[in-house]
């Protein structure tokens, strides 16, 4: 495999006809050459109970409890949920609410721990030997360790490892694309912990029972490609290391699978329907730690970057560390950032409260200076078609936007609003700086609300009708009962009358007799 980019990849000949995807300025050099450093124990740990997709975890500690590092403090609730462990030893000072690491800034249930600074381990999970363990045991260990998809999607990994039961799986794709600009945490992890990642990949392959494992890395990470190519074996597997073009959104699961296998995931289906499961490299690393050492997911690598950060770095931080402490660890700001983000610049969340914690899915803290962020001047659409050409899904964003602006949400849905990945390519590439993807976020929310309201109305109607039917049935039953009783009564009456008549008839001769006797 050639590490040097060929002329073809430089020029992208296919792009003379159509673009598909965008090539934002990567700006990875800010942090890509900084080794992963371990941040000391922070002064406070805040763990939101919902750091994953699915049901919120259930706290099992109370205020003033002393917890040890690695201790389970919130239990997964239901099939799609994840355990949460204490990242360090200390005292629980609150089980309450705190601002979410989300643009809404709404308070969410959170456990707050005051670390004692000793960082003392409690009981770890029992280690298992993946070579001997059954796939179910591995998945159970991953579930116990509270591992979620660490690329940002935060879907509980154990659920994905158990897909074997429902689908015929043949390929595991390890996503090391890291297509978001600025972010270098996966790149550094691959360069520095390749052997551990490889082991984690092998363990996941075993849990899934797949035949092939493909590790996809974007072409702009030659060192990571080189190191991963050396560590390409684990647990009877030899992985294929595939270099994918540097392009956003390369890390999108379905698009990556299409590029690697040539198969396109049907709309509303999963890649598992094609027999392919995608996991992130950082997740593989977490699986390695959980299975080999019994360590739950209590820390992660975060890229701290942006031109407003004094010392860009890749930092291993405990889950729950306040953002402000991580920023202080990196020397603070050189200037007041224009935007402070959790995640990458294409899909990351703007954060206004700097005390919000780092969660399991947070791969970057970016402090963008004014020179890096888009302006706010919006020009009208000139129909240049860049949004259409860059849309990886094949939508017509300018048209969807026009329909949404005209309050025609159903029209927008008809031309594919719900297929939108909200990857942001359209808004990135729009020369008029029109907030396209932002509008789609809004419209999707509105449409979901409309649908839920419709659903609610239908449900109410259904319940009302059911009640009516039930009442009618009761009334009918009552009527039937009445009729029956009436019939019974009548029958009884009749019977009584007949009986009386018979008795009368019986009595008559006697009477006649007596009468006759009397007459005679």
């Amino acid at each position, binding site marked *: 495999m050639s590490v040097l980019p060929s002329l073809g990849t430089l020029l992208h000949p296919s792009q003379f006809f159509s673009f598909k995807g965008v090539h934002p300025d990567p700006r990875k050099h800010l942090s890509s050459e900084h080794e992963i450093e371990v941040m000391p124990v922070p002064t406070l740990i805040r763990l939101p109970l919902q750091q994953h997709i699915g049901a919120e975890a259930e706290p099992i500690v109370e205020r003033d409890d002393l917890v040890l590092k690695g201790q389970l403090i919130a239990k997964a609730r239901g099939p799609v949920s994840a355990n949460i462990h204490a990242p360090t030893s200390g005292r629980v000072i609150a089980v309450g609410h705190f601002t979410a690491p989300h643009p809404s800034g709404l308070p969410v249930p959170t456990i707050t721990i005051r670390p004692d600074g000793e960082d003392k381990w409690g009981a770890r999970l029992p280690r298992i030997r993946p070579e001997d363990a059954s796939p179910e045991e591995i998945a159970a260990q991953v579930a116990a360790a509270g591992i979620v998809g660490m690329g940002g999607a935060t879907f509980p990994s154990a659920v994905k490892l158990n897909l074997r039961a429902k689908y015929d799986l*043949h390929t595991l794709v390890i996503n090391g694309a890291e297509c978001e600009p600025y972010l270098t945490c996966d790149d550094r992890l691959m360069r520095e912990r390749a052997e551990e990642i490889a082991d984690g990949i092998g363990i996941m392959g075993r849990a899934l029972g797949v035949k092939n494992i493909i590790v996809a890395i974007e072409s702009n990470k030659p060192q990571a490609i080189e190191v991963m190519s050396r560590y390409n074996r684990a647990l009877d597997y030899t992985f294929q290391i595939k270099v994918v073009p540097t392009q956003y959104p390369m890390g999108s699961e379905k698009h990556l699978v299409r590029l690697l296998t040539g198969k396109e995931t049907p709309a509303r289906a999963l890649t598992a329907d094609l027999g392919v499961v995608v996991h992130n490299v950082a997740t593989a690393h977490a699986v390695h730690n959980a299975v080999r050492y019994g360590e739950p997911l209590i820390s992660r690598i975060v890229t701290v970057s942006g031109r407003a950060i004094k010392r860009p770095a890749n930092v291993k931080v405990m889950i729950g560390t306040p953002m402000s402490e991580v920023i202080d660890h990196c020397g603070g700001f050189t200037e007041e950032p224009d935007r402070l*983000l959790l995640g990458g*610049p294409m899909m990351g969340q703007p954060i206004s409260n700097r005390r919000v914690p780092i969660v399991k899915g947070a791969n970057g803290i970016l402090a963008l200076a004014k020179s890096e962020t888009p302006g706010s001047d919006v*020009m*009208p659409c000139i*129909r240049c078609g860049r949004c*259409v050409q860059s849309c990886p*899904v094949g939508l017509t964003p300018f048209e969807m936007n026009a329909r949404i602006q005209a309050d025609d949400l159903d029209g927008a849905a008809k031309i594919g609003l719900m297929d939108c990945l909200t990857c942001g390519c359209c*808004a990135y590439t729009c*020369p008029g700086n029109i907030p396209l993807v932002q509008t789609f976020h809004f419209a999707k929310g509105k449409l979901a609300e409309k649908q839920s309201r419709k659903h609610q109305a239908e449900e109410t109607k259904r319940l009302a009708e059911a009640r009516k039917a039930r009442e009618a049935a009761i009334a009918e039953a009552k009527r039937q009962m009445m009729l029956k009783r009436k019939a019974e009564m009548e029958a009884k009456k009749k019977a009584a009358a007949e009986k009386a008549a018979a008795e009368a008839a019986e009595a008559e001769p006697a009477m006649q007799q007596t009468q006759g006797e009397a007459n005679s």
Partner: protein
Amino acid sequence: MTAQPLLAAPHTHTVFTVNRTMLAVVLALTPATVFGLYQFGWPAIFLFVTTVASAYLFEILSLWVAGKPIGPFARDGSALLSGWLVAMTLPPYAPWWVGVVGSGIAIVIAKHMFGGLGQNLFNPAMVARAMLLIALPVHMTTWVPPVGLLNGPDFLQSLAITFAGSTEYDAISSASTLSHIKSQLGAGASMEAITPDLADLKARLFGLVPGSMGETPTLLLLAGGLALVFMRIITLAIPLSVLGTIAGLSFVASTISPGTFAPPILHLTAGSTMLCAFFIATDYVTSPVSALGKVIYGICIGALIFVIRTWGSFPEGVAFAVLLMNACTPLIETYVRPRVFGRTRTGKPLPIVKPNRTKQSAGDKA
């Protein structure tokens, strides 16, 4: 911290804004324009400046009447580009008011009456050209040979030509390549007889022939167009389909009947073919956005140009071809949509093909 409006992702943005895009197109046009202006001398320079300046004035006036913010819209560069394109399609010695009327038609009628930037159905420069061609057939078809800035009329003489309607120029008015072919073929001459009278291929490639101010230097226009492709401002879809269709149709026609049809190389190097393929037909606002739509649009323009040039009453068909297809753009847009990921062209989800495990294991054993 006060809440800022619309602070959602993406938090980074491409360097291509509307005005940079327009300026890049203008930049790509510059070599051909400068060469054309040099070839046709002072009258062309005066006319060019008048046309572009009046386009700008009309733009500002229209914005003011429409009550739109003048600052950002006047800076977007679209009026500059429209005025520039109008000027490039004018005969170099046309009087000043032709340029002003052309700019007025382009900016006021074709652009702002439809709602301004991004709202026009028809390409403003082509509307202006078509209307001028029909209203002023004499002014719009008076061609002069390119003699160069130094050999042409001097400064004062040129002022008289452009601004006082003087017709006392030394240069003899001559026919453009396409009008010469048209008139000769119409008179019954055969292609073989006409060819020796025409400028040779080299002159047509370098722009040493009579024609509009900016349409003659074929190679410079091609280079500018390719620069736009490399800058990712346009794709090759429209230029290739326009040029390919013209070349293909004229090749077939001239192979069947070499005497009555012009050969492909003549079609590609004469008139405003190159200007149309790279700069006019690719106009964002009036062309379809999807790749397939662009190809259909380009093929139809190419075919229409060939048809109008061959059988129409005008020697050049670019303006009409582009305008006709502009009218079809909404139709193309409605029916030709990109395929959505994971769906068929009709919008249904793709069928789920279950991987066949038994087949695979059998393959492994073998």
